C-alpha cells in the first residue's frame, strides 16, 4: 500500500514537472514564434473581431491572438494586467479618461509614428471621435467597433398591443408606463444588478434637465453642482418614475450582462430598455428573430422645461485600440490597426448593428443588418450637439464602486435626494 502511494506521488511529481515546463515554455514560445496579444471586451461583437483576426493571420507572419474577458470584469482585469509580463500588445478601451492613467504611467505608445507612415490611421476616422483618444496632445487610440449612443429600445409588438406609440416626451413615457403596468407588463426592463444600466437613466435626465454643463462642473471638482436646483429636479423626476413602478420591483435581481434584461424585452415580458447601441447586436446574438422584426428604438425623450438640448446623446463616444510601448512587434500592431478602417471591417461591424466612425461609414449603411437602425443611429449622432461620455468612464476608476452604489441605493429607496447628493459630492474627481 505504501509503495502505491509512493508511485502516485512519483507520478504527480512527474506531472508537476511537465506542467512547470509547459507553463514557462508557453510564455517564451509566444514571443519566439511572433504573436501579439489583443485584449478585447467580451460580448456579442467578438465574432467580428475573431473573423478579423483570422483574416489578418492568413497573410501576416506575426500572428494575432485574441483574448476576450467578459464585459463585467473587463476594466478590472485590464488594469491588473497592464503592467505585468502578460500585458497585451493591443487592447480595447473607451479612450479619454479610460487610458489617461496608463498614459501617465508611460505604458502606452504614442501613435504619431504609425500615423506618419500611414496617415490613413487618422484621416479615415471622424475627427471628433479620433480626438477623444488624444491625451496631452498625442494620439493614443485608433477607433474600433463603433460609436455607442444610449437609445431607448422597445418591443414593437408589446407597444402595439397596448395601443401605444414610442414616446417622444417624458410625459408620454410616463403615460406609457402607466398603461403598460395596467396590462401587467413591466414597463421598463432594467439590469439593476449590474448597476451601470441604472446609471444611464441619471445620465440622460441630468443631460435633459440641466444640460451637459452641470456634470462637467462636477467632474471639474465643483461639488456644489450636485446640490443645485437642476440636480434636485432631475432626481425628483427620476424618483417619480421609479415610485410609479416603471421598472417593476425586482430590477436589482436582474442583470443585463448575463442576458437577463434583454430576454425580458425579447419575450415581451417588458416593453422598454434604455441601453447602449450594442443592444442590437446583443439581441441579434440571443434572439435573432426579435432583433430583425420586433425591436424598436428611439432617442431619449425630451423633458419639458429642461435646459438640455433634446437632440443631445450620452453613451460611449467610441471604442479604441491602444498599443503598449513594450510590444515587440509594433509593425504588426500597426498593420493590424489598419484593418480598422478597411471596408471589410466597416461592413462586418454594420452587419451586427454597430456603427463604425470611419469617414466611409455613410457609403455602406445600406449593407447593414438593419439599414434603418444604422441610419437612425448615424443621424442621431450626427445631429447631436453634445455627446456626454458615461459618468463612470469620465470619473477615475476608484469612483466607480461608490457611484454605482449610490445610483442603486437611490433607485431602491435606500437613500433620498440628499443622500444621493452627498454620495456624489464625496466622489474623488482627479
Amino acid at each position: 500500500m505504501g509503495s502505491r502511494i509512493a508511485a502516485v506521488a512519483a507520478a504527480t511529481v512527474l506531472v508537476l514537472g511537465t506542467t512547470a515546463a509547459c507553463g514557462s515554455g508557453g510564455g517564451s514560445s509566444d514571443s519566439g514564434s511572433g504573436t501579439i496579444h489583443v485584449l478585447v471586451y467580451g460580448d456579442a461583437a467578438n465574432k467580428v473581431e475573431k473573423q478579423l483576426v483570422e483574416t489578418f493571420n492568413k497573410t501576416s507572419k506575426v500572428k494575432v491572438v485574441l483574448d476576450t474577458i467578459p464585459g463585467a470584469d473587463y476594466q478590472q482585469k485590464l488594469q491588473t494586467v497592464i503592467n505585468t509580463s502578460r500585458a497585451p500588445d493591443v487592447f480595447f478601451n473607451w479612450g479619454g479618461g479610460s487610458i489617461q492613467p496608463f498614459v501617465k504611467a508611460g505604458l502606452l505608445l504614442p501613435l504619431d509614428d504609425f500615423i506618419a507612415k500611414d496617415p490613413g490611421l487618422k484621416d479615415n476616422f471622424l475627427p471628433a471621435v479620433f480626438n477623444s483618444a488624444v491625451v496631452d496632445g498625442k494620439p493614443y487610440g485608433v477607433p474600433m467597433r463603433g460609436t455607442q449612443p444610449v437609445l431607448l429600445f422597445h418591443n414593437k409588438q408589446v407597444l402595439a398591443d397596448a395601443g401605444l406609440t414610442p414616446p417622444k416626451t417624458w410625459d408620454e413615457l410616463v403615460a406609457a408606463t402607466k398603461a403598460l403596468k395596467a396590462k401587467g407588463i413591466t414597463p421598463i426592463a432594467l439590469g439593476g444588478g449590474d448597476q451601470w444600466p441604472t446609471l444611464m437613466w441619471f445620465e440622460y435626465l441630468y443631460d435633459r434637465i440641466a444640460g451637459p454643463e452641470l456634470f462637467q462642473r462636477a467632474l471639474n471638482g465643483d461639488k456644489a453642482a450636485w446640490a443645485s436646483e437642476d440636480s434636485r429636479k432631475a432626481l425628483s423626476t427620476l424618483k417619480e418614475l421609479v415610485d410609479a413602478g416603471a421598472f417593476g420591483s425586482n430590477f436589482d435581481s436582474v442583470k443585463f450582462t448575463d442576458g437577463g434584461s434583454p430576454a425580458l424585452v425579447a419575450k415581451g415580458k417588458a416593453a422598454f430598455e434604455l441601453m447602449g447601441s450594442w443592444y442590437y447586436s446583443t439581441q441579434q446574438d440571443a434572439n435573432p428573430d426579435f432583433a430583425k422584426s420586433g425591436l424598436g428604438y428611439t432617442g431619449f425623450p425630451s423633458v419639458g422645461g429642461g435646459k438640455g438640448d433634446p437632440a443631445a446623446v450620452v453613451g460611449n463616444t467610441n471604442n479604441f485600440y491602444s498599443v503598449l510601448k513594450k510590444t515587440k512587434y509594433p509593425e504588426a500592431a500597426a498593420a493590424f490597426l489598419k484593418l480598422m478602417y478597411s471596408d471589410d471591417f466597416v461592413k462586418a461591424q454594420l452587419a451586427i448593428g454597430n456603427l463604425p466612425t470611419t469617414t466611409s461609414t455613410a457609403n455602406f449603411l445600406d449593407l447593414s443588418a438593419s439599414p434603418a437602425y444604422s441610419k437612425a443611429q448615424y443621424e442621431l449622432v450626427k445631429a447631436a450637439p453634445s455627446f456626454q461620455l458615461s459618468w463612470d468612464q469620465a470619473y477615475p476608476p476608484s469612483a466607480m464602486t461608490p457611484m454605482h452604489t449610490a445610483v442603486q441605493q437611490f433607485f431602491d429607496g435606500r437613500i433620498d435626494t440628499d443622500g444621493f447628493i452627498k454620495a456624489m459630492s464625496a466622489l474623488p474627481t482627479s
Partner: protein
Amino acid sequence: MRRRPNFLAGFGSLVWLALIGLPLYVLLIATFRTRSDYSTEGPLSPPAQWTLQNYLDDFSNGFGQDFLNTLTVTAGVVAIVLLVVPPLAYAIVRARGRATGWIFRLFLLGLAIPAQAVIVPMFYVMNQTGLYDHLIGIVLPTAAFCLPVCTLVLTGAMRDISPELYEAMAMDGASPARVFRQLVIPLSKGGLSSITVFAALQAWNGFLFPLILTQSDSTKVITLGLYDFQTEHGVDVPALLSAVVLSMLPILVVYLFARRALVQGLTGVGGK
C-alpha cells in the same frame, strides 16, 4: 431491539430531501433542454425534447482546456503536499527539539490566515516574479494554504502509531529515514489518502487564486470558466449548468469508488 418508526424524523428527512433535491433536479434536467425551452417553459418543467447539445457546446467553448488546466493544477498541489507534509508531520510527532514545536505552532497559526488576506501581495509577488498567468502561480499558493490542515490531519494519524514499534526499530539501529520509509509511511496510509483528497479538492474547487492570478483562456481553470460563463452568458442556463455537471463528474467518480477517502478528505480536521 425493535423500535417503532420515527415519523417526525421521516417527515423532516423528506423536507430536507425536497430542499436538496429540487435544485439538483433543476440542475440535471436543465442540461438536457434547449435554451428556448428552458426560458419559456420554466426551470421546473421536464424537457420538451431531450438534447445533448449543451454538453457538446461546453466542449466547443473550451471546457476541455479548462478541465486539463484544473487537472494539472490539482496534480501539482497534491504533489507538493505529499512531498513536504509527511516529513513535517513525522518531525512534529517524533523530533525532540524545541524548534519543531515552534514550527507546529506556526502551522496552527497559519490555520487562521484567510487566503483573501494575502491575495494583494500574492498578486504583487506573482507579477514581479513573472509567474502571473501561469498555472504554477496558482499551484504554489494553493498548496501552501493546504498545509496547515494537512499537517494537522497527518500528525493526528502518525500519533496513533504505537511507540513500541518505533522502539523496536530503534533497537535494530534504524536511521530516521528508514523508520520513515518502513514504518511511518505504511502505517499512516489512511492519513495520507485523507490529505491527498483534501489537497485535491482544494485545488479542484479553488477560485480566488485563479480569479486574481490568471487571465488567459490558456490558463483558465473550471471554476473560473464557470464564473466567466455566468458573467457573460448567465441567461444561457442549460449550457451553464451542463458545465457545472461536467465539473463535478471527477469528484463523483471518487465519491463512488473511494467514498471513505473522500469523506475523510472532506472533513479534514475532524476525521483522520
